[in-house]
């Protein structure tokens, strides 16, 4: 049993200069065989392992990660959490996640710093206004909190926005989801890792998957840089590298992997206490607890695994940021980076069985996977444990690309992809 984190454990460890904290998770070598192997030790993968152990009482589970846990897109995103999606299936999926976020710190005994500071989406033209109003109504019909704001209300909610009618893309209104917000990305991976480890999950880092061994139409195990691991069930949660793993199993997926960039400024005093996103000009901004402005840019339109994007994408985003927030004109940017996101043709994820027995994929989250981490793990665990999807992820199967029953969130999901 792990020591519970609390004010008392903090005080106790202060007496030994914080040098005797118990390791949050072990660093084991892989066993020869597991019941289930999860490929990918990001938030989604670790959450999947956690819920497999916790809700489905499965014990012999491993998570294999080629680098270090949370070192991929989990540590590279802009940590925005919201559930104001247009379509019923998406609303169900993302609000399921949001509800878990609300109690996650308590459940994990790990502060994920979930902050419901609200997410505001801006409208810059008549079509935006109509789309945002429509989405607000759709959200409310699905029980998701959403309000439409006019320009003055936008200004009141976030006073540093330039709402002058004379700017290139004037602010005509916006939507607000107050339950939305941000969380600490690393803490999510670490909290799930600690919780999964406590229930006996082996988290194996620096272990790259090199091949998937099949026997006819079922899986037998994986070849890794730490040797062969036998297993009957494989859950792939490899984000941008999902197609690479799929190719090892002889599958093709409807995915394209592209660089998505973000950047942070030097830390400053609190200036923006919410998250503001703009679809039309593609700029979104929030402020981290350290004081950095966290700015999300767009994806490049070419396939790349290079984890670096084009400068013109960043330039376009910063142009929009400066037009909307003239107060930031002298801010200096501290860091800029790219992550590789796997984008589906309908901009909705895949949480699904495949044509190969024992092989499951959780991928296609594109530019917006972080917000779904707890819900995605929960539903993927359900899908793997029961070999059947949960009703909340039934629509997000691979077969929708054959049947044509797509969940088309491109442009509908409050952000351009």
């Amino acid at each position, binding site marked *: 049993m792990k020591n519970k984190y609390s004010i008392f454990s903090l005080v106790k460890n202060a007496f030994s200069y914080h040098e005797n904290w118990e390791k949050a998770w072990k660093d084991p070598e892989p066993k020869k065989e597991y019941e289930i192997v999860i490929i990918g030790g990001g938030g989604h993968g670790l959450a999947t392992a956690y819920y497999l152990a916790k809700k489905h009482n499965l014990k012999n589970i491993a998570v294999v990660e080629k680098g270090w846990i949370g070192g991929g897109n989990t540590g590279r995103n802009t940590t925005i959490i919201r559930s104001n999606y247009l379509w019923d299936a998406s609303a169900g999926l993302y609000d399921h996640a949001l509800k878990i976020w609300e109690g996650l710190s308590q459940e994990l005994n790990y502060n994920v710093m979930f902050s419901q500071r609200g997410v505001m989406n801006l409208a810059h033209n008549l079509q935006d206004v109509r789309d945002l109003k429509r989405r607000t109504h759709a959200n409310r019909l699905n029980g998701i909190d959403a309000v439409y704001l006019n320009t003055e209300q936008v200004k009141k909610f976030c006073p540093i926005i330039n709402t002058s009618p004379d700017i290139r893309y004037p602010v005509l209104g916006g939507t607000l989801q107050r339950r939305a917000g941000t969380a600490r990305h690393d803490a999510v991976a670490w909290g799930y890792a600690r919780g999964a480890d406590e229930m006996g999950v082996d988290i194996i880092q620096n272990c790259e998957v090199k091949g998937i061994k099949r026997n006819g139409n079922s899986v037998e195990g994986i070849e890794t840089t730490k040797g062969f691991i036998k297993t009957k069930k494989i859950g792939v949660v490899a984000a941008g590298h999902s*197609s690479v793993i799929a190719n090892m199993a002889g599958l*093709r997926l409807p995915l394209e*992997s592209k660089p998505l960039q973000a950047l942070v400024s030097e830390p400053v005093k609190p200036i923006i206490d919410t998250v503001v996103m703009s679809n039309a000009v593609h700029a979104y901004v929030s402020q981290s607890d350290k004081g950095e402005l966290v700015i999300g840019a767009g994806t*490049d339109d*070419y*396939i790349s*695994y290079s984890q670096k994007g084009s400068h013109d994408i960043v330039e376009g985003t910063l142009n929009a940021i400066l037009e909307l927030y003239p107060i930031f004109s002298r801010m200096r940017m501290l860091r800029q980076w790219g992550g590789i996101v796997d984008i589906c043709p309908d901009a909705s994820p895949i949480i699904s069985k495949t044509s190969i027995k024992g092989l499951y994929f959780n991928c296609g989250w594109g530019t917006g996977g972080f917000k779904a981490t707890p819900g995605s793990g929960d539903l993927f665990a359900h899908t793997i444990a029961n070999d059947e999807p949960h009703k909340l992820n039934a629509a997000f199967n691979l077969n929708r*690309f*054959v049947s044509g029953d797509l969940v088309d969130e491109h442009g509908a999901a409050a952000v351009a992809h």
Partner: protein
Amino acid sequence: MFVINCPYCGEREQSEFKAGGEAHIVRPKQPTELSDDQWAEYLFMRKNIKGIQFERWVHTHGCRKWFNVVRDTSNDEITAVYKMGEKPPTNK
């Protein structure tokens, strides 16, 4: 960001171009005879290769012509450029 050598205009910055995705996907000759699975393969399924990829680009802010590029998607290095209809430089 990288430079693409347009076969018509010469070397230009990548931001002048638009990517057209995987090249050499042949449009079905008899669309009416395709099953749903075959349509899904043609429309949606992609190799999405990490490594050498044959892909299409269009010089949107230049000659507006389409052409093919061979690029390593792991480091964005371009090894060949060839016109539409020309044979790919190596066996794909």
